Every structure is written in C-alpha cells, then in structure tokens.
C-alpha cells in the first residue's frame, strides 16, 4: 500500500511550525520558521518541511491547521485549536502524561490530557505577557544575549537573583538596575527563569497537577527554564524530543486519524 502523508501546521504569533507525518507514525520532515501569522512564515515552513520530507504538496492527503493563525491557512482540511493538538501530540510521545505545560511566544497554558490523549481541560494565561516566551525575549535583549544562550548561562548561576516584578516592563527595568549594580549575568538569567517558572507553576496549580507532567513549546528547549519549572513544581517534568513542534505534530496526527476514518 502506498504511504499516506499528512501535514500539521501550527501558526503561532511568533513562529510557524510545520510537520509531515508518514502513515500516522513517522516524522518525514518538519520546519520551524521564526515568523508567525500574517508573515511569509507559514508558507515558508510548509515549503521547507516538504523539501525535508522530499515530497510535494500533492502527496499530502490531509492538512490540519492549528495555532493563533489557524483560520488564515486556506489549504487546511481541518482547523483545530492548539489546545487539542498539544494534547494529541504529547500523548503520542508520552502516552501516560496527564498534564502538559506549554509556553509559547505570547501565551502559556496548562493542559489536562485524558488517558486516551484527548483535551480534557485547560487554563491559559491572562492578558499579561509575564510567564511567556515574549518575557524571555525581552529579558534576553536587555542582557544582550540570544535566547538560545540563556540555558548555558543559567547552568553557571551561583546565587539566583530574585526578580520580584511580574510585569514585563517592570521586570525589564529591574533587570537593568541589577545590571548596573554589576550583578552576575548568570545569576540574573536564573532569576528570570525562576520568574517565568513561578508564574507558569501557578497556572498549572490552578488547573490541578496530575502526574506525569510534560512541557512543550519553544521555551522547553531552554533547559534552564525547564529546570526552574521542575524546582517550582517539585516534581520531574518530561520534555519531548521536539517540544516546539508538539502542536504541529498533534495536528498531523489529527489529520491522519480523520483521513483514516474517512477511508
């Protein structure tokens, strides 16, 4: 029987993620482009994922769009919220995970996953950017670091600095004043991670934590932030191999399952 390819595209506020799945299980290709909805990001992510998979769009038998810009992707066969896609995605990697914490560019969410991999309930951050990827972007800029360098700096921290402001703008000036006091940058980075972790752990506690817990989203690539979250929750947190494309992965699985039902 010929291989069946499905595609999941997660169009976020700051990045577009596309993943191609073969026969519902094998990842044939994926791409993460640092440009989200309203940009060329979605299109580029599709092209790149296709080229990585070595196939053309005509070979794709079903597409699910998810994420903030899901309604703008006209090629989609299904439109599903990122909450459901994240639940499906993490269940495929860790079938026993019951709580997923996802920190994206402009939102953070805690998701309860059912034993069958369905979205059972969720809570999301309120209008404040604290505790999201955007918060880390702003702080990294102030520290003249790239976000990818944050984890390494965190690992070298000795005395975690307390960042007391939750407001991104207040925290920014707090970090600036610490910098001018010659506080060690690594300690500051660890403090910033703790600030994000406290906020996110609060969100997860509101939902109610059922173990095992996993973390996804771009911020999960940052081991410093992930460790801080583990410390705040007091329990281990699992990270899937491709945390940033967990939503796109779930979307591709959704497309596969729905095509299968139709056949």
């Amino acid at each position, binding site marked *: 029987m010929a291989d069946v390819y499905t595609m999941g595209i997660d169009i976020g506020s700051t990045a577009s993620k596309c993943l191609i799945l073969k026969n519902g299980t094998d990842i044939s290709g994926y791409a993460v482009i640092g440009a989200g909805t309203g940009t060329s990001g979605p299109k580029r992510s599709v092209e790149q994922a296709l080229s990585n998979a070595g196939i053309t769009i005509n070979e794709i038998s079903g597409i699910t769009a998810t994420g*903030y810009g899901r*309604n703008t992707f006209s090629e989609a066969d299904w439109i*599903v*919220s*990122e*909450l*459901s896609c994240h639940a499906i995605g993490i269940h495929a990697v860790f079938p026993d995970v019951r709580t997923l914490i996802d920190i994206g560019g402009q*939102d953070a969410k805690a998701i309860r996953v059912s034993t069958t991999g*369905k*979205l*059972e*309930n*969720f*809570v*999301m951050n*309120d*209008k404040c950017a604290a505790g999201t990827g955007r918060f880390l972007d702003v702080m990294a800029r102030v520290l003249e670091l790239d976000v990818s360098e944050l984890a390494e700096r965190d690992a070298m921290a000795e005395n975690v600095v307390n960042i007391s402001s939750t407001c991104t703008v207040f925290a920014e000036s707090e970090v600036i004043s610490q910098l001018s006091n010659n506080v060690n940058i690594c300690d500051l980075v660890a403090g910033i991670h703790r600030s994000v972790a406290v906020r996110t752990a609060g969100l997860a506690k*509101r939902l*109610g934590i059922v173990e095992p817990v996993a973390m996804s989203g771009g911020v999960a690539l940052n081991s410093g932030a992930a460790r801080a979250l583990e410390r705040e929750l007091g329990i281990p947190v699992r990270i899937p191999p491709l945390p940033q494309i967990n939503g796109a992965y779930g979307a591709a699985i959704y497309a596969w399952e729905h095509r299968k039902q139709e056949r």
Partner: protein
Amino acid sequence: MSDSIEKKPAKIVLRELQNKIAEEAWEAKKRGEKVGWCASNFPQEITTAMGIPVVYPENMGAAVGAKGGGQRMCEYAEGMGYSGDLCSYSRINFAYADLKKCEEMEIPFPDFLLCCNNICNCMIKWYENLALEMNIPLLLIDIPHLDERTCDEDRIRYIRAQFDDCIRQLEEITGKKMDLEKLKSVMEVSQRSSRAWLRAVGYMASTPSPFSGFDIFNNMAVANVGRGTIEAAEAFEQLADEYEALAAKGESTFKGEEKYRILFEGIACWAHLKYTYKALQTRGINLTATIYGPAFSFLYGNLDELMAAYAYVPNSNCFERELELRVNDALKNKVDGAIFHMNRSCKHWSGNLYEMERRFREQTGLPTIVFDGDQSDPRCFSEAQYETRVEALVEIMEENKKKEVKA
C-alpha cells in the same frame, strides 16, 4: 393590559418601557422635579412608591459601551486623572459628569445621589466623588456583606433603620411624601414582576431553551430598574408566556441548532457583544445559565424580608452561597460547559473569579474557560484569545457528548 402591548413581542415592549422610563425622567427634570442618579441595586421600591424619578449611570455605561463610545469616554476620564483600573462604568460616568454630553446616550443631571453598596464597595467612592464634584446630597444604604448563609435580625434592623432614614431624607430633598399604601402596592407589583422574570428565565431549563440566552442581558435592565411598575409586571408575564409557548412546541428564538449549552459568568462585554455572541452562536452554543437569571428577582412577603432580599443580591453574598447558586443553576439548566468573563473593570467579580471557576469545575466536572475582557472598555479584550478558548471548549464538549452517546 392595553391592546398595543398585546400585539407587540415582549422584547419590544420591554425596550419601549425602558425608553419610556428614561423619557419620564427627562420630562420630570424639565418640570423642575428633583431627579436622582441611582445605583442599580438600590431598593427601587422607595423611589417608585414616592414617585421620584431616578436614572441609572450603570445602565448608561452599558449602553455607551455597546454603542461604541466606551473607549472615548474612558480615555477622557483617564485624561482627567482617573485611573484606568477603575470600573469602566464609573469612568464613563465621570467623563459624562464633566463633559455634560455624550453622543451615544445621555441621562438628566442629578439633584441627589442614591447609592447602595450591595453591588460593590467601589461604588461608594464613585458616588462620594460625584457628590463632592457636583455638591449634591448622597444617600447611602450600606448593606453589610453577607458572610453567612442567611441574613439575620441584626442585619435586617440595620438595613431597615437606613431604609427609614433614607425615606425621611428623600422627603426633605424632593418635597414628596412616602405613602405606605403605595409602598405596599409597589411591593406587590415588584413581586409580580420578579415571579414572572423567574418564570421566564426558568424556561432555560427546557431543551432546547426557548430563547437565545444573550437576550437576558437586554431584558434584565427593566427587571432591575422598572420592576415596581404594572407595565413591567405585565411585560414580564407576556415574556414568560411567549417562552412557555415556544418551549411547549420545542422551538426557540436561538438561531440555528442548540448543540451546546453553557453558563456565562459575569457581565457581558458590551463593547464586543456582537463578537462574543457570534463566536458562540455560530458554533451552536446557547447561553442557558447566568446568575442574572435566578438572582435578579427580589422575593419577599413583608418589609423585613424586603431588607433581607437586598442583602441576598449576588455580589453581596458569601463565596460559598454564590458558588452554590451557579452550580445549581448550571445543573438545573443542563449546561455542557461554562465561560467565565474575567471582567477587568469589576473588582468584586474578577477578584474571586479564578477560585469560582476552579470550584465550579471541581463540583460539576464540567469544562470551563476564562477570558479577559471588560464590560465597557473595549481595550481589554482580544478576539483571537476569546476565539481560541471557545474553540477548545467546543472540542472538549464535543468529546464529552461522544462519550455520553457511547455510555
């Protein structure tokens, strides 16, 4: 009941009645009568029985918000120095008090103020501020927060003493006298209105609900301010009859199939009413439970019970009782999920909202979402965030329905 009322749908009758009440206040003002600005949960029995015209800044705030003037008025008030954290109804009112004009809606200027803090305590400062700025008397009925389940004798006596004193002061200010017989008949009419309102909203328990739940947000204005009048009682009875007839036929004014039923917690987002409604309606979600249903009826048999009734309004209650009202309403009206409006204006309502949502979810086992918004300040709402939450809620409700079918 006049013929013209019988012919028109109750919804129109209620809207006309609301306009008429507003019009009467303008006419009274022109005649030189004293007019008051009044808090929405102030005992309307007093003013109705005494024939004192009052208007409601909160209703104006809602109307201005719905008609698109919220941002302009709020920004004006902020320019005057009022904090953006204040309730948007108060900001709109402060702007109006200063500008003395508002293209979306105007109300006659007051000669006195009637405040009642059973709705919230922010209101006291709002009205004190107006009293100072306008140099007019402020009459306050202080209703202690009900931290127990029932309103005891001491509380009733405390409220009653203020009630009597308020009447005395109003007699002095307006020159009008309280007629106790008239008060008795207003109380009776208010009971009639309240019972009819309860009967009308009670049909939300039918499947499908005979009406689109968002209609409550429009109809409740009269339930709140005009329930002491015969016209209101008749209009609500007509509304209840209309719903009864629709329910008997299994029909509804809700557009489309009612696939899901939800509880909506909080004040509507007036400035985004259409959007917040459409996002639900197009997905087959009807609102079939809201605290405005059961809680905005004031049932009492005598004056003491009337005092107690004003202590039982939702915002004045202990958390456990408030939670119970919502849980019972949700179960009775068979909802599939709940939407909680984190209303940034209303400190009372948003203050306990996360806990309310958590406990509601725990007790009912139903999925819930929270969205950020504001009743009349459009700047605190994001369409995309609302949409994402609603969509995910639908996905959960859909899964739950599939499970029910399998079971």
